[in-house]
């Protein structure tokens, strides 16, 4: 018998031979991304030769083109490498996804680890062979244009592309090891990218609806900024849009130095994880969606939970908490059935392991109850001031940090008020508070709450407003200790403000005293609203307006005394606003024209006279006709707009 030596090399060569179409694809794709692209960049040089007056100009332009070609083609190659890595991962795993081929490979006298190693090596070698050819041709192109130095940038990006290829290749192989079908392999790969962001988002939304004090948005932010780096394509695309610049290779350098190393290590870990999975994998399950029953269960429940929550959230907007619970149940059961059908590849298996669903539902309900009832005091937990490095409160979208113990205590007091307040029907106007504690160890804890503005929280809030830390961080541009604003709105319900005046401490005290007397109640906000004269905001939280109507006679008169022209626009904003009005139209409620002018003086007069609610001691709430004022606005300061206001004249 003539025995030939059988080695893995033979199998490798045979495998490479069989994968020649993939090699061709890689070569064509890479050649298009790099040398052909570079050629196109350089060919642009010859379109307008007369544009260059001197040889130096031509040389400069040539070099800028070379830099552009190297960088852009390198970036193209990086994205392409990720795609090719995924493609190669599917091709290499194909022999495990088909029952017949899995049996053939299992029966041949080559250990499965060696087979896998050969397959992996073939995928790597094909990429590297294509890349080597691409690099060689690129060198020739750059050298022929006298710009060989710029090929260095390209090579750095090629290295980055290689690492990316390996990472995505390994990730796809790992997904393939868990699955017995290429379609499920793709689904798992997609889930690897989408699952966490979607789940964190849904979970955050769900918790925010269900639990007042829960906010997972910061988890989302943490994920996006930190964890997303693990999912290269997302990270790259996001950063590409931010960082992409023809002149710089900073991003590529950054990738080489830090991120690439992490990707390389992650790829190695994924390759290593494939080996035990391969050993555990049963060939008899090739062609089945999932080859590991336990993993399938984990996947099923891991997907089912956010699905249930998502449907619950949708139902919440239709109904309320009971609807949300119903939605959770519907979403959970439907997703459970659908996942059973997909994962078991059996349209009749929708109620497979229904006991598991029942147990899960009980556990889920129990957990929800424990959290809703806050048995574990997660909801109401407030860290001791000694544990907190600093606490922050969000004012109008700006975070203000408080480091002093007394201020941190004030933050805690505020949150405590929010947790203990008794206003279940939300009758009182409320302030939305968002706080973030940074503990001594660096851990962050975010809380959010709504609280009605009563005296007790107001004291804590005022303490924070009056603190040096607040003034320094938020109101550093203000000279006075300003924390109360009078804002004159154009119309009830309109958010448009055309005048704001900040009050000083003395004015505030006086005004608040008048307001208290006018309302005749310790709670300023329990009174019914009438037509609005002005809005007072700031003193009780950034988004809490106090609507002043005609019944607050003393207050309105005080405002009139302290702002004789009624409108407290500054000269700058007033002039800018009025000068931007090109057309003013006044109509009655039935659209009959009362006045229509484009004369600037008339417009100014009309505006000042008609928009002012308080003119000296005469305020016009109790008389006059309702009319529309329409101002077509086109100023650079405010931007083009058409504003219509309903007002009394």
């Amino acid at each position, binding site marked *: *018998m*003539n*025995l*030939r*030596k*059988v080695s893995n090399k*033979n*199998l490798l*060569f*045979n495998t490479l*031979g*069989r994968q020649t179409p993939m090699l061709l694809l890689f070569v064509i794709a890479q050649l298009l991304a790099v040398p052909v692209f570079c050629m196109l960049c350089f060919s642009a040089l010859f379109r307008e030769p007369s544009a260059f007056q001197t040889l130096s100009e031509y040389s400069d332009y040539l070099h800028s083109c070379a830099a552009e070609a190297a960088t852009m083609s390198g970036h193209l190659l990086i994205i392409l490498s990720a795609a090719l890595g995924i493609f190669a991962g599917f091709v290499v795993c194909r022999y495990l996804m*088909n*029952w*017949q*081929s899995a*049996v*053939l490979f*299992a*029966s*041949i*006298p*080559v*250990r*499965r680890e060696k087979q896998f190693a050969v397959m992996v090596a073939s995928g790597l070698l094909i990429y590297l062979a294509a890349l080597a050819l691409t690099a060689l041709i690129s060198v020739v192109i750059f050298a022929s244009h006298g710009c060989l130095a710029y090929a260095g940038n390209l090579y750095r990006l090629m290295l980055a592309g290689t690492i990316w290829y390996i990472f995505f290749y390994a990730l796809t192989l790992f997904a393939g090891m868990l699955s017995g079908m290429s379609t499920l392999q793709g689904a798992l790969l997609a889930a690897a990218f989408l699952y966490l962001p979607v789940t964190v988002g849904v979970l955050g939304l769900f918790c925010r609806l269900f639990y007042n004090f829960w906010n997972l948005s910061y988890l989302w932010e943490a994920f996006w900024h930190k964890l997303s780096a693990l999912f290269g394509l997302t990270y790259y695309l996001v950063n590409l849009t931010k960082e992409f610049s023809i002149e710089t290779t900073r991003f590529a350098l950054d990738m080489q130095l830090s991120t690439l190393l992490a990707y390389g290590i992650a790829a190695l870990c994924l390759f290593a994880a494939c080996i035990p999975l391969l050993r555990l994998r*049963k*060939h*008899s399950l090739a062609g089945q969606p999932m080859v590991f029953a336990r993993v399938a269960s984990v996947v099923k429940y891991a997907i089912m939970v956010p699905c249930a929550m998502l449907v619950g959230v949708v139902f919440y907007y239709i109904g309320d908490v009971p609807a949300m619970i119903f939605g959770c149940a519907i979403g959970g059961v439907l997703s459970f059935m659908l996942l059973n059908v997909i994962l078991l590849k059996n349209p009749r298996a929708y109620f497979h392991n229904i006991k598991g669903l029942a147990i899960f539902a009980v556990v889920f309900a129990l957990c929800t109850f424990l959290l809703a009832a806050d048995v574990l005091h997660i909801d109401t937990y407030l860290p001791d001031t000694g544990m907190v490095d600093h606490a922050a409160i969000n004012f109008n979208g700006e975070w203000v940090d408080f480091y002093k113990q007394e201020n941190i205590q004030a933050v805690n007091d505020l949150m405590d008020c929010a947790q203990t307040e008794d206003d279940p029907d939300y009758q009182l106007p409320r302030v939305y508070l968002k706080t973030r504690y940074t503990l001594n160890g660096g851990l962050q804890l975010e809380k959010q709450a709504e609280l009605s503005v009563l005296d007790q929280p107001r004291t804590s809030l005022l303490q924070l407003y009056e603190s040096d830390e607040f003034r320094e961080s938020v109101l550093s541009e203000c000279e006075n200790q300003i924390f109360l604003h009078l804002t004159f709105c154009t119309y009830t319900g309109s958010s448009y403000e055309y005048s704001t005046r900040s009050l000083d401490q003395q004015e505030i005290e006086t005004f608040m005293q008048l307001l208290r007397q006018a309302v005749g109640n310790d709670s300023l906000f329990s009174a019914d609203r009438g037509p609005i004269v002005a809005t007072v905001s700031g003193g009780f939280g950034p988004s809490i307006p106090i609507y002043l109507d005609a019944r607050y006679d003393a207050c309105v008169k005080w405002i009139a005394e302290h702002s004789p022209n009624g409108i407290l626009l500054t000269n700058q904003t007033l002039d800018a606003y009025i000068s931007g009005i090109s057309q003013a139209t006044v109509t009655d409620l039935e659209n009959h024209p009362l006045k229509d002018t484009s004369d600037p003086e008339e417009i100014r007069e009309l505006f000042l006279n008609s928009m002012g609610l308080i003119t000296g001691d005469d305020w016009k709430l109790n008389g006059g006709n309702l009319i529309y004022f329409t101002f077509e606005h086109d100023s650079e300061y405010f931007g083009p707009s058409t504003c219509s206001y309903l007002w009394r004249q």
Partner: protein
Amino acid sequence: MIEIKEIAMNYGNFPALSGINLTIGDGSVYGLIGSNGSGKSTLLRLLCGVYAPGNGQILYDGQSVWENDKVKRRVVYLSDEQYFFPHSSMAQMADFYASVYSCFSYPRFEELAKRFCLDTGRKINTFSKGMMKQAAIVLALACDTAYILCDETFDGLDPVVRHSVKSIIAEEVACRSLTVVLASHNLRELEDICDHIVLLHRGSVVLEADIDDVKMNLHKVQTVLPQNANLNGVDIVSRSDRGSLSTMIIKGRRGHIESYFEVMNPKFFEIIPLTLEEIFITEMEEAGYELTESL
């Protein structure tokens, strides 16, 4: 020699095989028969190391086949659903087999391909189902291994090719002591070629026997006997009467049966050869199995 010791295998909770004990000698042709789902294919896949046994051992000359390249080099498996690489030709498949089987013989491959009139350069996906089967047989035989495991190999082959394949297998067995294990649900397929038969039923061995032994010890007799003939001297397994003609299956040596009936001076007496199917029906019924359940 293949030793199968206490093999058991489950698919999830379903027991596919349990407590299988067999010894397959070198140079023999073993036929595995049984109804669908009786465990034939599973046993073959265990024999070629595709599946790991849940329990027990499969030894080739004392060495386990599971994850053992040295043993697997001597075994080739012909699956009932052959796999060929997409768009590959027989020659390309031969290259693949040659890269993993050290004994692969290209001359033998060419010779067999020629014998079956198969174009080795033609893409296999353009072959008919029967031609694909032939291609798989050619490739397996060209591997020149000591053991060949065939699962439903004769399905889809026309009678001429089927006969050719049997002839080739017989040649290989005679020339180089090839050991063949054939799985089929069709007894007639195996009758011509097998020297041993194993009947599997619901994952267990119902019967294992040498065909010659069984045939020598079991006979079908058609006779017209005088009235009150005494038949106590022979071991009648089954008997049916149609008029005066009695058809019996009798255990025992042919000479003994002939001499016994000769003494009774029958009006008509004939010993008819038993088909393998009849033998197994008889054996199965004797073993207490329902015919329709197992075959």
